[in-house]
């Protein structure tokens, strides 16, 4: 658990220093004629920080974190519980890390190509955009990594206190909220039917994630004909009212 907290602190520090380096690089790029040293300083600092952070993370934290990760995965498999790592966020973060690194590398190549020559405005602009994206990417990656670390420590806390965190089997709350748009004369029976089919047929057959997707689809697809029928009925009433008056 201590390792997780340290890892989280390291990530924060890395994020903030990376962003500072990014800002330096951008500033150096904007006022390239006078302050190109800022760009070089930013890039070199970032390289140094990444190297130090990687060594620190590996030597002191990841060595403890990886076995914890494996242990959590094993426990989840055994208990049939939701694993905090196997989420879309993890995949997204991995992709964002790769994208950020690629962007940063492209920014550097672009700024190298831009050096000195007069016809290199395009490269300079491109490198600027890449660097800005890199800063955004860094913020995004670190925020999500921190979220994962948070979730993992929460998961371990829950396991320690003897509770097994399960994936929610309730229908999606916002979809249920949308069902308030269903005309009142259908609402009660339709919601009842949806809940019964969800809990008795769809959930056991497809699992919570796909069942929730099914629920969303049913709600959205049901709203269209019901609201349309109600609108037509009301339009009909208006026509009758006008003709009678």
């Amino acid at each position, binding site marked *: 658990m201590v390792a997780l907290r340290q890892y989280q602190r390291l990530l924060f520090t890395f994020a903030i220093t990376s962003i500072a380096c990014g800002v330096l690089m951008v500033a150096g790029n904007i006022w390239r004629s006078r302050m190109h040293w800022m760009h070089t300083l930013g890039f070199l600092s970032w390289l140094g920080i990444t190297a130090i952070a990687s060594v620190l993370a590996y030597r002191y934290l990841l060595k403890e974190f990886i076995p914890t990760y494996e242990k959590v995965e094993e426990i989840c498999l055994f208990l049939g519980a939701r694993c905090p790592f196997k989420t879309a966020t993890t995949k997204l973060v991995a992709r964002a890390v790769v994208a950020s690194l690629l962007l940063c590398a492209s920014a550097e190549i672009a700024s190298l190509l831009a050096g000195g020559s007069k016809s290199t405005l395009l490269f300079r602009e491109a490198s600027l955009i890449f660097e800005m994206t890199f800063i955004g990417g860094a913020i995004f990656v670190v925020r999500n990594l921190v979220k994962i670390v948070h979730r993992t420590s929460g998961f371990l806390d829950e396991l320690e206190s003897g509770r097994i965190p399960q994936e929610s089997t309730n229908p999606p709350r916002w979809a249920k909220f949308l069902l308030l748009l269903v005309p009142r004369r259908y609402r009660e*029976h339709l919601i*009842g039917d949806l809940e*019964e*089919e969800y809990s008795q047929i769809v959930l056991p057959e497809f699992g919570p994630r796909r069942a929730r997707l099914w629920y969303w689809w049913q709600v959205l697809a049901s709203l269209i004909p*019901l609201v349309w029928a109600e609108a037509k009925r009301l339009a009909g009433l208006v026509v009758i009212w006008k003709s009678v008056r």
Partner: protein
Amino acid sequence: MFYIVSMQSRTNGKPEPLGEFEALVLMAVLRLGSDAYGMRIHHELETTAGRRCSLGALYTTLDRLETKGYVSSHVGEPTSERGGRAKKFFEIRATGAAALKQSYAATLRMARGIEPLLGGASW
């Protein structure tokens, strides 16, 4: 206006022709008998007829059939598996059965002689 015209066509003797989905829904109600309520009809349509639809579309069709006088409905007791909500049971009426019979007969008449073109009688 539509309601008045439809009532007139029914009083002329012949029931109003059914749409394809309406016929399927009526058949599902007939098949399920006393257990015909929204979720069961929906499931029956999906498993037996292979027809996917939303519950909203099913309810609007059932409502239309009820307005035409082809089915009647009554509300059952609330149950816990539905979060304390009541079921709405549907029952086919004599006019509905007649309309379904007429629609089915028309389909059969049209299909007679074209089975080989549709790949044999197995369909």
